[in-house]
C-alpha cells in the first residue's frame, strides 16, 4: 500500500464549464474549492461556485490562466493541497506539475514525465511506433522553417494537416489542400498555437481521406492497474474541433473495442501513465486504426463515458491522486447510448464566427436522461477572450435512436437570447440522414454544409410573423400606457381618462 495523501482543498486552474464541472464533484466529496479568475472573468459562474477565488491577472490567457507561477502562488496562498487543471490552458504542461510537486502540492493528472512523453506530439508518435502502435504518416519532428515545411508537405502529398506540436483541441491545427495555400495556413497555425499553448512549434501529418475519429478513455492508478472505459466517436467536427460525440461508435463492435482498448492501455503503460487519459485514433474505411495522439488530461467529452459507465471521472481522478486504487476491467459496465452536443456561442451561418456578448435570457432543458454541463448564466457577458463553448448537453437512452431523439428534444428546450448559438445547427446534424445511419466520418460537416444550415422554416414563417407583430403591438401599447400615466402625473386629472383618450387616438381599440 502506498501512503494515502489527503486532499481537502482543490484549486481549479481553469474557467468556464469545466471549472464548474470539477467543483461540483468536489462539493459532493466534501472538498473545498478555489477558483482562479482573470479580469474578464470576475463575474463568471466558476467564481460563484468556488469557496475561495484568487485573481490571477489580465484578460488574455497568456497573462493569467497560462502563467504557471501565478497558479502555484494562488495554491500556496489559499493552502490548497491539490490542483485540478481541467482541459486546455495548463492541463498538459509538465512544468506546472513539477512546480506543484516542488511546493508539495498534488497535481491531479499524470506524472510529469508521462506528460513530456506525450506532450510533444512528434515524440509521442515515435514512442507509440516503437511500442508497436500504428501511426499516421508525417514529419517525425517539429519543423522550424516554413520553406522546409512546405517542401515536406509537397513531398508528402496534399491534403496535409498542419498541427501544433504542443497542441490539442483543434487550436493551431489547419488542413491545407494546396501548396499555394501553405504559407498563410502555416503562419496562422503558428500564431494560434503560440496564443493557445505558448509554443508555436508545428509539424505535418498526411491527411487521411474520410477517416473517423474514435478515441478510447483510459484510466490508470499508481498501483500498476490500467483499464479502458470504451470508446467515443468524435467525427462530427467543424474547424477541426469536435461538436458532437457519442458512445458507442457505430463502427466499433465488441471485438474491435477489445483490440483498440488493449492498444490504448498498452500506449498508456508505455509511458507509465497514471490518472485519466485519452488515446485518439483515426479509423479508416477498412476499420484499420492509427494512433493520432494521447491527451494526458480529462477530455471535454468525458460526460459521454460517464453516462454509459455510471462513473464520475473527476471523482476517480481525485481518488487516484489520493493514492487509491481504481476498479478492475471486469467491473467496467457499459450500458445504453450517450451523445453530447457542444453548445457554442457562434453563428454557423457565418462560418462559425464567434458570438461573444451578453446572454439576456437563458433557459436550460430538463426531463429524462438529460445532462447540461454549463458554465454560464442569464445576464452574464460571454467574454471575447476565451473558447466559445458555453455548455455541453448530453442525452442518455437505451438505444442510439432514442438517444438522438432525446437530444433533439432537449436542444429544442434550450433557449439562449442575446448572443447567437449553434442550437438549431446541432439539431440539424442529429437529424441528418448520414448521422442517423451512423455512416459518417470527419468530412461530415463540410460535405453537408449547406444541408446543415437549414433555411428558416417556411412552415413556421406565418406564425413567426404573427408572433413578432403581436409582440411589437403590445410593446407599443405598453409604452403608450406608461407615457400616458407619466403625462397625467400632477395634473389632477384621472390617468385612466387620459389612457382611454390615448387609446382612442390610436384607432378605436378597446
Amino acid at each position, binding site marked *: 500500500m502506498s501512503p494515502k495523501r489527503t486532499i481537502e482543498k482543490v484549486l481549479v486552474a481553469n474557467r468556464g464549464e469545466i471549472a464548474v464541472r470539477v467543483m461540483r464533484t468536489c462539493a459532493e466529496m466534501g472538498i473545498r474549492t478555489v477558483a482562479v479568475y482573470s479580469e474578464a472573468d470576475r463575474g463568471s459562474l466558476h467564481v460563484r461556485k468556488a469557496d475561495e477565488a484568487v485573481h490571477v491577472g489580465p484578460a488574455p490567457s497568456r497573462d493569467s490562466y497560462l502563467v504557471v507561477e501565478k497558479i502555484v502562488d494562488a495554491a500556496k496562498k489559499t493552502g490548497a493541497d491539490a490542483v485540478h487543471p481541467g482541459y486546455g490552458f495548463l492541463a498538459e504542461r509538465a512544468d506546472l506539475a513539477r512546480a506543484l510537486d516542488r511546493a508539495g502540492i498534488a497535481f491531479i493528472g499524470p506524472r510529469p514525465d508521462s506528460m513530456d512523453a506525450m506532450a510533444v506530439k512528434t515524440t509521442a508518435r515515435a514512442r507509440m511506433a516503437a511500442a508497436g502502435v500504428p501511426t499516421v504518416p508525417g514529419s517525425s519532428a517539429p519543423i522550424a522553417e516554413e520553406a522546409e515545411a512546405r517542401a515536406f508537405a509537397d513531398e508528402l502529398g496534399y491534403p496535409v494537416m498542419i498541427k501544433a506540436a504542443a497542441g490539442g483541441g483543434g*487550436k493551431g491545427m489547419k488542413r491545407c489542400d494546396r501548396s499555394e495555400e501553405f504559407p498563410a495556413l502555416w503562419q*496562422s497555425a503558428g*500564431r*494560434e498555437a503560440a*496564443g*493557445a499553448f505558448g509554443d508555436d512549434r508545428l509539424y505535418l501529418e498526411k491527411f487521411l481521406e474520410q477517416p473517423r475519429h474514435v478515441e478510447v478513455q483510459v484510466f490508470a492508478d499508481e498501483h500498476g492497474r490500467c483499464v479502458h472505459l470504451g470508446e467515443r466517436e468524435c467525427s462530427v467536427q467543424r*474547424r477541426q474541433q469536435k461538436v458532437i460525440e457519442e458512445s458507442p461508435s457505430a463502427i466499433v463492435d465488441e471485438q474491435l473495442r477489445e483490440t483498440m482498448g488493449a492498444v490504448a492501455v498498452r500506449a498508456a503503460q508505455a509511458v507509465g501513465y497514471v490518472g485519466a487519459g485519452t488515446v485518439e485514433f483515426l479509423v479508416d474505411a477498412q476499420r484499420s486504426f492509427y494512433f493520432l495522439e494521447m491527451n494526458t488530461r480529462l477530455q471535454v467529452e468525458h460526460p459521454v463515458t460517464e453516462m454509459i459507465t455510471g462513473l464520475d471521472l473527476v471523482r476517480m481522478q481525485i481518488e487516484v491522486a489520493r493514492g487509491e486504487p481504481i476498479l478492475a476491467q471486469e467491473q467496467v459496465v457499459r450500458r445504453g447510448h450517450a451523445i453530447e452536443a457542444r453548445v457554442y*456561442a457562434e453563428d454557423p451561418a*457565418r*462560418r462559425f*464566427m*464567434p*458570438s*461573444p*456578448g451578453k446572454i*439576456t*435570457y437563458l433557459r436550460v432543458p430538463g426531463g429524462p436522461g438529460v445532462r447540461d454541463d454549463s458554465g454560464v448564466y442569464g445576464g452574464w457577458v460571454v467574454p*471575447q*477572450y*476565451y*473558447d*466559445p463553448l458555453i455548455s455541453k448537453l448530453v442525452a442518455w437512452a437505451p438505444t442510439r435512436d432514442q438517444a438522438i431523439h432525446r437530444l*433533439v428534444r432537449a*436542444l*429544442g428546450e434550450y*433557449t439562449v*437570447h*442575446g448572443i447567437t448559438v449553434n442550437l*438549431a445547427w446541432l*439539431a*440539424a446534424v442529429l437529424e441528418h440522414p448520414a448521422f442517423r445511419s451512423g455512416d459518417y466520418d470527419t468530412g461530415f460537416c463540410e460535405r453537408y454544409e449547406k444541408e446543415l444550415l*437549414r433555411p*428558416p*422554416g417556411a*412552415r*413556421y*414563417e*406565418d*406564425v*413567426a*410573423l*404573427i*408572433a*413578432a*407583430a*403581436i*409582440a*411589437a*403591438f*403590445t410593446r*407599443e*401599447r405598453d409604452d403608450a400606457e406608461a407615457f400616458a400615466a407619466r403625462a397625467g402625473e400632477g395634473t389632477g386629472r384621472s390617468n385612466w381618462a387620459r389612457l382611454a383618450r390615448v387609446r382612442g387616438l*390610436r*384607432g*378605436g*381599440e*378597446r
Partner: protein
Amino acid sequence: MSAYVALLDDGKREEAIAVRAIGPGLYEVRLRGKVHVVDAFRHDYGTLSLIVDTSSYSAMLDWRGTRVNVRLRHAIIPLEILDEKKLRMRRAAGKFTVAGKQTLTSPMPGKVVRVLCRVGDAVKAGQPLVVVEAMKMENELKSPKDGRVVELHVKEGQAVEGNAKLCAID
C-alpha cells in the same frame, strides 16, 4: 388597427401585417389576405404562447432593436419588424443601396492580428482584408465587393469593439 411591415431574408422580401386587439389577450391579425384570431399569452421574458385559430405554439423572441429572431420548434426565423413611420424613415435614409462605398466592420469584439490590404489596393469580392481574432479563433473578414480600398481604420495588434469600422471599399 396597427399596420406593420416585416422584412424577411435580410430585406429581400416584405410582408404587410395588421394587428387589432379584440379582447384581453385576443387579437385579430391580417396576413397574406387571411384573418387569424390569435390568443397570445406572454410567459416569462421573450416567450409568447400563441393559439392561432386552434394550433398552439410557443414563440421565443430574441430582440435586437427592431430585428428579432423568432424561434418556433427548431426553426429560427430572423426578421425585422417596422411600423409605417419607421419604414418611411428607413426609406428616406436610403439604407437599401448596395452600390457605392461599403464599410467593412468587425462582427465581434476582438483583436486585429493581420491587415492584408493597404489604402489604394484593388481588391476583389471575397478577398480577405483583415484578420480578427476572437475567442482564440482567427476570422478572415472579406471584401464585400470588387473595388479599391479607400479607408483603413485599424492596424495589427489593435483591439476592436463589435461593429468597429475596419476599412472601406469603393
